């Protein structure tokens, strides 16, 4: 069977699909690809179902050794190359389909102006889904690969490829990194004292980020509400304020419920844009007209 071996992995390489839904009431996080635009794009190119599982990586991509014949397609803002067994080096092109052979090595570099990149496969992953999803849940460490991010030496077995039904190419998403992120008011907006600072001052994307959340550095947001409020269900894109006044955006592996007050929610069209922002990027929140 075709295999993919992780000679090296980046810091946060996982398998993701559309996510695991309908089990949040028993405490599971939804997971799923952070940037579904790119997941859909590579899957459309490969003729897969749009939510077919993909390899997602953050900041730095993996180095993979292939066995047997494997068909891939990459999307994101990174360079990559394919080293053939005869020493030939092919410079990778985004969104192009590559047919790989035994002992080919795919080396993916750093993500440049974005944070998440994707590798699509024209194969099934021979791993067990959990509650119908192939996504690795990094919050509770559940799902394929025992819920762990991939480590050096890990191996994935793929189904034999039946060929590629090249689909109608999609429109590549606009990947411009914005300086404005649209929000709507969260359930606790009215309890905060300086929402004007929240809207007028800039926030910085810090290195404290993973698939669970992004810690944003910006104005100290004050509230007169009790921070020991009862927990409320969480959703992707909710922006919460901690007792120390820090701002955290919840991402796809967010805890299913939590007690921190939620000041805002990122608009759906801007969720991927926020997640993809490079570390040390400044932006402002803008209230969407309702």
């Amino acid at each position, binding site marked *: 069977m075709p295999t993919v071996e992780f000679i090296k992995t980046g810091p946060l390489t996982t398998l993701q699909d559309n996510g695991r839904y309908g089990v949040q009431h028993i405490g599971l996080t939804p997971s799923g690809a952070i940037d579904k635009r790119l997941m859909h794009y590579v899957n459309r190119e490969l003729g897969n179902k749009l939510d077919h599982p993909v390899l997602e990586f953050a900041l730095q991509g993996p180095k993979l050794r292939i066995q047997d014949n494997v068909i891939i397609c990459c999307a994101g803002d990174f360079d990559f190359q394919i080293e053939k067994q005869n020493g030939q080096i092919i410079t990778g092109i985004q969104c192009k389909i590559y047919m790989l052979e035994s002992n080919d090595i795919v080396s993916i570099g750093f993500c440049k102006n974005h944070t998440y990149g994707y590798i699509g496969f024209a194969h099934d992953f021979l791993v067990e889904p959990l509650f119908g999803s192939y996504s690795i849940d990094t919050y509770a460490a559940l799902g394929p690969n025992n819920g762990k991010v991939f480590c050096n030496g890990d191996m994935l077995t793929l189904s034999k490829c039946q060929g590629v039904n090249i689909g109608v190419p999609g429109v590549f998403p606009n990947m411009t990194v914005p300086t404005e992120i649209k929000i709507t008011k969260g359930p606790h907006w009215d309890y905060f004292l300086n929402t004007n600072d929240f809207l007028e001052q800039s926030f910085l994307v810090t290195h404290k980020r993973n698939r669970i959340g992004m810690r944003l550095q910006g104005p100290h947001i004050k509230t007169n509400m009790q921070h*020991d409020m009862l*927990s409320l*269900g969480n959703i992707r894109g909710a922006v919460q304020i901690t007792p120390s006044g820090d701002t955290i955006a919840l991402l796809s592996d967010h805890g299913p*419920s939590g007690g921190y007050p939620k000041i805002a929610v990122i608009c759906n069209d801007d969720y991927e844009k926020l997640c993809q922002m490079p570390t040390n990027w400044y932006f402002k929140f803008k209230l969407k007209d309702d």
Partner: protein
Amino acid sequence: MQLLTQLVHTNLSRIKISKFGESGLVCDFGNEVTHHLNDFVWAARSQIQNISGVLYGIPTYNKLVVYFDSTKISTESLIGVIQQIKVTANTLTSNKIWKIPVCYDGKYGSELDRISEYLDTTNEETIQHHCSKPLYVYSYGGLPGHPKYGNFDLCAPGRLATPKSVVPAGSVGWVGTQGGITTMDAPGGWNTVGRTPMKLFDVTSADPCKIKPGESIQFYPITSKEFDAYC
């Protein structure tokens, strides 16, 4: 108008439903932490989950967060469908009382002293209160199968100012009048009063959560020897 707490059946047009972003709703059944309201919340979740376009519902004590695919159903249509739903408040409450062993030794109950100091009780009295009565399970908390229960008669101190980076699985938490038992190692900011050796979540099982909302739990103290011997 009758209060929700006085009704056995209700139409969801009586509850407050507000937007939570572009793909979310908060269904608000009130502010009291009672079995009755919680029963409505769970009954509403199981019906709302079946609406086409709804991805999930997360019940907490008296609120239900609904998350949906806004490309499949609009916020307004979803609210309209939810308002047609009728729920009954006697579906959940069960007579089952789980007896949960807890070791309160210092190495397991890292905030036992903090709680006793706050309550102005001895540790023995704190433990006695913690074990004194069955506690109703309202929902699952921040982790899979993590029961959240209440209501203690004594109010423990609030969450820790700085959350711990790792709270071990089985940690028995107590904040205010509410409690929870963690099911896996995870960061957390709750006071830990002790630890149970009982496993409450098994992802390989067809029925992964041992304790269900509507059931109750009652703690009993065990020694660290008994903890180690528990299997």
